[in-house]
């Protein structure tokens, strides 16, 4: 199950002074982003992404995943203190976390939340450590037709799960594929749709698109707010109560174990993400609890169930990213950009060619969870001051950082203009509910699809139905059809009701 040679080599890669620094700074940034309402992990990741250019691949990826982990936990802190989920995954935490705060039990609730987050995240990466090799074995069976079928499935599935309108998600996915094909064709060498700009001959820089698509719309929505959080989150903190909560959560084995399992499985599904994971886990805990009536009124089990699943979903989404190269959320889409920036292509080949790096990343994430326990407790004490940062100070600074990051990618001012254009596109996609994640999936996989289509045409030109001779292609296509049937069945049913 585990290649111990690669594992030891991966652990060796982590033995550098840069690693604790990357984990510390990433975690700190992630926690700060998580506790700021309206700021997402994707935004934080997008800002630091180009700045990781000067780092080696593993340090850069550890830094990025630390931001991701920190933001998931930070979101829960705010959910407990002011009933505002800092991240979508923290929605379920508000249900019992905030009632606990109103009862004066906020320190205990924070302890429960921190402890469950650490346990959930740790377990999910432990599962990933054992599962990555079999998953990669399966991923290596994916050829052109399989990848094509999978991409179509993912775009449809995201549309069904995330977007209100399936048609708009498909529009965004196709739009993304078209945009990704700007530039020189791999097979014919023809420069396509470049408007005559030599800078576009290598294609649209994906990293810049990600930064623009996720960061600029976030900043645009901050424009109308005087400060990041108008509510007072300065509460009295008591370290004893915090530790009481930490130990209380550890004792609730059944709850965090179920939450973690739910989180890992839901995290694997594209677009399902932390929010669905934590809500599913919360509902499950409520259903099987002896204190059902206490849920929603400040039940500690509710906080443990929600937060363990919230952070466990991270390992699930990383599993699908590492083995198949499919980002399950906006944040993992940016992390995928981080891989590409360092010349790594997630998918079956990544583990085969860079086994030590993948193991290093997983073990590094396990270490992060231990760090998290300490940092989250520390940050909980200072959260009030952080969310008081005024938007007139933050927004210009972030724009400057983004422009530097975009410029640094290829040392071209042209890329800064691309950042602006994709910022506007991102705003429209977000505001009109076109599911920006579908656009990103199309953008990431579009070039690959272009090459795959050519291979499929050459291989199956005599009989296109031969595509379905592959079991994997047939199964994925069947899932796509079933998902569509499910979607239309419930749409018709809802209309009748």
């Amino acid at each position, binding site marked *: 199950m585990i290649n111990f040679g690669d594992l030891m080599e991966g652990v060796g890669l982590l033995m550098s002074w840069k690693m604790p620094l990357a984990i510390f700074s990433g975690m700190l940034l992630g926690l700060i982003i998580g506790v700021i309402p309206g700021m997402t992990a994707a935004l934080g990741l997008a800002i630091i992404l180009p*700045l990781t250019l*000067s780092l080696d691949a593993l340090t850069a990826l550890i830094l990025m995943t630390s931001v991701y982990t920190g933001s998931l936990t930070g979101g829960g802190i705010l959910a407990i203190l002011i009933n505002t989920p800092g991240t979508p995954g923290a929605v379920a935490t508000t249900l019992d976390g905030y009632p606990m705060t109103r009862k004066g039990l906020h320190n205990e609730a924070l302890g429960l939340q921190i402890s469950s987050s650490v346990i959930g995240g740790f377990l999910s990466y432990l599962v990933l450590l054992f599962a990555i090799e079999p998953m990669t074995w399966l991923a290596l069976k994916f050829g052109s037709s399989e990848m094509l079928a999978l991409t179509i499935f993912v775009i449809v599935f995201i549309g069904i799960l995330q977007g209100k*309108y399936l*048609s*708009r998600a*498909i*529009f965004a996915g*196709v*739009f993304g*594929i*078209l945009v990704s*094909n*700007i530039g020189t*064709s791999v*097979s*014919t*060498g*023809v*420069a*396509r*749709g470049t408007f005559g700009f030599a800078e576009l001959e290598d294609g649209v820089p994906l990293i810049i698109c990600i930064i623009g698509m996720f960061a600029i719309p976030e900043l*645009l929505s901050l*424009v*109308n707010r*005087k400060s990041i959080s108008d509510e007072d989150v300065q509460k009295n903190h008591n370290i004893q109560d915090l530790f009481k909560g930490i130990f209380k959560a550890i004792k609730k084995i059944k709850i965090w174990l179920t939450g973690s399992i739910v989180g890992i499985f839901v995290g694997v599904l594209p677009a399902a993400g932390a929010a669905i994971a934590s809500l599913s886990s919360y509902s499950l805990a409520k259903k099987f609890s002896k204190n059902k009536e206490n849920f929603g009124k400040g039940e500690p089990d509710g906080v443990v169930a929600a937060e363990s699943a919230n952070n466990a979903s991270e390992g699930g989404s990383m599993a699908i990213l590492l083995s198949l190269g499919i980002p399950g959320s906006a944040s993992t889409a940016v992390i995928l950009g981080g891989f590409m920036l360092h010349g790594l292509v997630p998918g079956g080949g990544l583990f085969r060619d860079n086994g030590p790096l993948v193991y290093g990343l997983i073990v590094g994430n396990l270490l992060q969870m231990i760090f998290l326990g300490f940092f989250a407790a520390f940050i909980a004490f200072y959260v009030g001051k952080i969310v008081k940062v*005024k*938007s*007139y*100070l933050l*927004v*210009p*600074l972030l*724009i*400057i950082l983004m*422009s*530097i990051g975009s*410029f*640094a990618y290829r*040392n071209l*001012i042209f890329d*800064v*203009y691309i*950042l*602006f254009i994709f910022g*506007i596109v991102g*705003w*429209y996609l977000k*505001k*009109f*509910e076109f599911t920006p994640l579908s656009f990103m999936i199309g953008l990431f996989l579009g070039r690959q*699809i*272009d090459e795959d*289509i*050519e291979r499929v*045409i050459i291989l199956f030109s005599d009989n296109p139905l031969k595509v379905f001779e592959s079991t994997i292609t047939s199964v994925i296509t069947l899932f796509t059809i079933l998902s569509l049937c499910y979607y239309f069945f419930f749409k018709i049913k809802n209309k009748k009701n």
Partner: protein
Amino acid sequence: MKIVKKIFNEFNFFIILAISWSFYFLNSTLKLEEGPESVLLIKPLFYFFVGISIFIIVESVAKNLNTKSQLFEQKKIYFLITVLLFFCGLNLFGYLISTFFFYIILSYLLGFRNKFILIPPFLALIIVYFFFHKLLKIPLPL
């Protein structure tokens, strides 16, 4: 008048802009030598894209769905213009001058109205110069 408003709105404009771009994309490639061989994916996708776009427009008109992006609010427009001027200024004046003025203008527009307004831009300049240019060795046009 109502039907005109329903059809000519930001939402449909965005979709039509996307279709126009994809038409240019397909057409400009087809005109090239070996162009037809380079659009094996783009061509069917373009037709599909047009089809689904028409469906979305019809759906939004028929169901009266949300067609306002809220992008054209005064503050957001000022924000976008300032950012665009900053990006253009980078090419003309370099990072130091552009960053300084951009920070002052944008923070003023967003509500920073006191005598300390020069301090954050000055700190930003220090970060840009010492951290990014000197420490990280990013060759910024200064």
